[in-house]
């Protein structure tokens, strides 16, 4: 161990700085050239020559020359010899630090190969250590003739004057295998100089002489004190008197016991602090360590942990190893597309995001959180093309049953009802009765436009849709259907009204209600084909469209029946009268007029009553009505009697 103090006074001779720098040159040479090369060997000769030639005052008591680089300064024998390091020295400092060293001490007669090995290890450590490895990992082997000066923090906690390590590398030196003195070593020296301590140690040595031999772990006095120091509380390093008191107390108890301390020494003492110290010291010195090697335990623990399956491969697989040839063969088999720059569109892929969002929409536990996705999903849907929307399809037709299925369906339906749904389905090219009902009325026009009314299956499906929607729901959405959903599109009107299906009644009613007059003939056509019977049916079949008022037709299509209301009856009564009056001179309408007179009796009103009287009395060759007309009027009047009073 080195304990000499650095030489003071005169500036270092050039030979000293040259010795230090020659070490750096040697290390750099090893990094570049073969160790047997003339160049490296030359630097090796230089270095050994320089340190051998140094004045003895630069040599430590252990016979070594200590060279260190700390904070950009270079030291030999702990004396600063270069204040600002050169690039060569900076290079060396970097490697030393990565090796958790500040320097090394070299015996002038160090073995040449060992010196080269040491330098090589220094370089290897530089490459191998990214900052996580400690001194002991990096320097598992010793290099006879070379003393490593480990980088260590040496200081004290607190403002009091503490123990110094006695080296100039405050905060960095003192560690390793002997350079400088640590706090513990200084404290040990201090304690060993105390007469009380020495007296107690003598007593303990007497105990040892009585039968506790080395095999039981007994060590020398100085080592015993060193071990006591090691377990002293940190405060003891700040307060020497405390350290002395504790040490004396511990030694006293050990000596007083007169035999090897049992592991449960704690049972024999009362002071807690002393108790703990004794327990530790007792176990260390007098009880064999049966726990085995810690490193082995760690290794065992690592072995116990299983390597993940992904890394183990499958049973029977050949283990994949480092094999450059095999690697290159496999690499060449990888596909090689033409290289192109990645763009925003490659990274920001709406279809991928849609998939994720859809999954969340349909699987999140909270309805509220699911609802928060509507906005982002809406934005995405607007950006997607038909093929990119395919992710939606499985959610539109999920398989299975139960809560999960229902939730998927419900969440998606809720979302789709609130979005530009028809665009989604239009892009998808898919829309079935289920989703028309779920999303009604948003997808209705898309649906109805895609129907083939000549196709029975399509018509059946529409019947199903209308049945499931129900009249009330259809009529409630009248405005939307008429304005946004294209119900009044001529094609739709034409197709619907040509289909004499009673379930279409509410749709046809909306056409009549919201559409123009041009819709009326088609609606009448629908009503006629839809099986309207009785007087209403006969009326529609008889009268030209212009004599059939919209209100009458609407009354025929009231939910729940095909009978005109009394108010509509009054109105139709007027129109029959108008028809009869306006066609008086038209011989082609003769038969129709007779039928009209017959029907008038079924739509009683005061006006009809009066008109029938007029017809009955309108006789004569000029301006008179035919016998058939008057006869029909009489019959109608008779039919009305009792229903309407004659005025």
């Amino acid at each position, binding site marked *: 161990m080195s304990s000499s103090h650095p030489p003071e006074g005169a500036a270092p001779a050039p030979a000293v700085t040259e010795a230090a720098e020659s070490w750096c040159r040697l290390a750099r040479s090893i990094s570049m050239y073969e160790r047997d090369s003339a160049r490296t060997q030359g630097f090796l000769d230089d270095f050994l020559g320089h340190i051998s030639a140094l004045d003895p005052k630069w040599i430590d008591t252990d016979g070594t020359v200590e060279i260190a680089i700390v904070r950009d300064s270079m030291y030999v024998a702990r004396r600063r010899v270069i204040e600002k390091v050169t690039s060569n020295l900076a290079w060396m400092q970097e490697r030393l630090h990565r090796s958790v060293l500040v320097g090394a*001490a070299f015996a002038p007669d160090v073995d040449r190969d060992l010196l080269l090995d040491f330098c090589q290890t220094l370089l290897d450590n530089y490459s191998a250590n990214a900052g996580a490895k400690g*001194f002991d990992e990096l320097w598992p082997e010793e290099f006879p003739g070379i003393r490593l000066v480990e980088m260590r923090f040496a200081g004290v*906690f607190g403002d009091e004057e503490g123990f110094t390590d006695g080296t100039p590398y405050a905060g960095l030196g003192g560690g390793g295998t002997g350079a400088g003195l640590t706090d513990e070593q200084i404290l040990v020296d201090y304690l060993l100089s105390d007469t009380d301590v020495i007296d107690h140690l003598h007593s303990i040595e007497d105990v040892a002489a009585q039968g506790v031999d080395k095999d039981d772990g007994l060590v020398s006095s100085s080592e015993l004190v060193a071990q006591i120091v090691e377990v002293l509380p940190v405060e003891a390093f700040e307060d020497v008197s405390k350290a002395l008191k504790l040490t004396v107390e511990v030694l006293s108890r050990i000596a007083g016991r007169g035999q090897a301390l049992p592991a449960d020494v704690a049972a024999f003492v009362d002071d807690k602090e002393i108790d703990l110290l004794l327990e530790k010291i007792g176990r260390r010195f007098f009880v064999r360590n049966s726990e085995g090697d810690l490193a082995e335990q760690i290794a065992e623990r*690592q072995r116990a942990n299983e390597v993940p399956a992904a890394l183990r491969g499958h049973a029977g697989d050949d283990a994949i190893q480092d094999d450059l040839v095999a*690697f290159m063969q496999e690499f060449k088999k990888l596909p090689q597309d033409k290289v192109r720059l990645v763009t925003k569109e490659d990274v920001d892929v709406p279809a991928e*995001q849609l998939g994720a969002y859809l999954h969340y929409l349909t699987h999140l536990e909270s309805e509220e959180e699911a609802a928060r996705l509507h906005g982002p999903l809406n934005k995405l849907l607007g950006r997607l093309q038909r093929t990119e929307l395919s992710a939606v399809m499985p959610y539109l037709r999920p398989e299975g049953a139960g809560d999960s299925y229902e939730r998927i369906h419900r969440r998606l339906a809720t979302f789709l009802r609130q979005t530009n749904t028809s665009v989604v389905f239009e892009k998808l090219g898919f829309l079935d009765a289920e989703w028309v009902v779920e999303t009604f009325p948003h997808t209705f026009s898309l649906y109805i436009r895609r129907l083939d009314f000549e196709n029975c299956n399509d018509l059946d499906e529409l019947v199903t849709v209308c049945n499931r929607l129900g009249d009330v729901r259809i009529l409630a959405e009248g405005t939307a259907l008429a304005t946004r959903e294209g119900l009044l599109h001529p094609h739709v009107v034409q197709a619907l009204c040509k289909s004499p299906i009673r379930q279409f009644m509410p749709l046809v009613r909306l056409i009549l209600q919201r559409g123009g007059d041009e819709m009326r003939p088609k609606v009448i056509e629908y009503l006629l084909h839809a099986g309207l019977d009785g007087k209403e049916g006969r009326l529609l079949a008889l009268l030209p469209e212009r004599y059939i008022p919209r209100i009458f037709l609407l009354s025929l299509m009231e939910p729940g029946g095909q009978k005109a209301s009394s108010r509509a009856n009054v109105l139709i009564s007027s129109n029959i009268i108008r028809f009869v009056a306006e066609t008086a001179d038209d011989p082609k309408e003769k038969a129709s007029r007779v039928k009209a007179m017959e029907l008038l009796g079924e739509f009683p009103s005061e006006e009809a009553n009066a008109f029938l009287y007029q017809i009955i009395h309108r006789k004569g060759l000029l301006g008179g009505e035919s016998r058939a007309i008057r006869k029909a009027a009489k019959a109608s009047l008779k039919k009305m009697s009792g229903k309407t009073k004659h005025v």
Partner: protein
Amino acid sequence: MCDLHPRDEVSSQLTLGIVDFVDELVVAITNSRIYSPDHPRVIASVTALCEQLRDQLGTDGPSELVLGATGEFLFYDQRPLIGASLSGNRILEALARLDSGGLSFSNWANEDDMRIVVGMLGRQRVDAANYSEANDLLDQLGCSSIRFLPSYTETGLGPGGGAVVNGPPKLDTPEIPIGVYKRLVDHLQDTLVRVCHGTLLDTTETMSLVELILHQLATDTARMMSVSRYERYDAYTFGHSIRVAVLALNYASALTLDDEVLRKIGMAALLHDIGKARVPFEILHSTKRLDADERAEMNKHTLHGGEILLEQELPEPVAVATAFGHHRTTDQGGYPGLLHEHPLSVATRVVKICDVYEALTAVRPYKDRMSPMRAYRIMMSMGRHFDLNLLRRFIEINGIYPVGSSVQLLDGATARVTSQTDSLLFPIVQIEGEDFDPIDLRKSTGPKGRHIERLLIETQI
């Protein structure tokens, strides 16, 4: 020959174990920030911490463990804990606020004591102005086994007595941009806490960090890429996410010139595993093989991830889709299982490749690091799990000797890879110790040509 002392094996083992202890402490602090003190997770992590402490001290070891803190480093037994200092930044900050130089944990510290201290370290504000008041507070709370230590002072000969080092040594670790890494870890820790508290994420900071990585990659690729090989493992997978982000951004930088595309990929990569914040603690931290139910729960992290990102005020759709789909395969396999065919964007494909590559080449508690070449061979054998065109490009860009890694040449020289070329076997390298310009190994032909013999730093399973 000089007289050399035998190495102190016990000290060496303790130093190794202290890293685990600090990791456990960070986990406990993070949990204490998320949950109430009596939450099972806090209790579990504090219990684990106490076990670590007992393991660390052992039955015949020292009576207390002193964790020192100075500047940006935690240290133990005078030795810097470089890796632990990164994840333990919160500990450093908390101690700095109290002007404390560390913590002393006695071996009789129990779970209650530990919970009190962990709680204090996790809080932004403690009713104590300094370490002394903090200790008073501990006393009031009945905790005497753990103490905040006074500030740490370096000792030395003093002015005029030789070299004086004021404060902690400035450790230059040229391969790891420590500041950037720390900021990333801090941000991901904060993100985890926000997720657990149900508060909005700071996506502005996330984006700033993505831009910072991009800037670092542009200015010093090798230095930033060293993060991708940084072998610190953390239970919360912060390190994994950071490494995947660095790999993905380096890769994507070669695929596009569009900054917006890069930012989107970076954001997606950094947050791709955010869903793990909602995976049960016991499963996420399990060191045993997961059973089918546990695996199913773990696999839900993709669903949780997208969900968390969707909960933000302005969800970034690319990040949502990547978090959701990065375990899907191009042949419609993987998880989550879906009703529909699910296309994967380039962002998801890139992150997926980097995710698997990182997992294979990183150190884990149950495995050592794997070489890039072997990782590629495994990935190629997985067929349509990946977009094979993109996998090919990744291999070309990342290389079998990745930028920043060290290689040994046939002539024995050590070199650092500075960039890839069109040949995987012949990258451009800087020879260690030479001030010359980097060498293009493609052009280094002939009898005296330099070729790579092996990649350094790699150890095989």
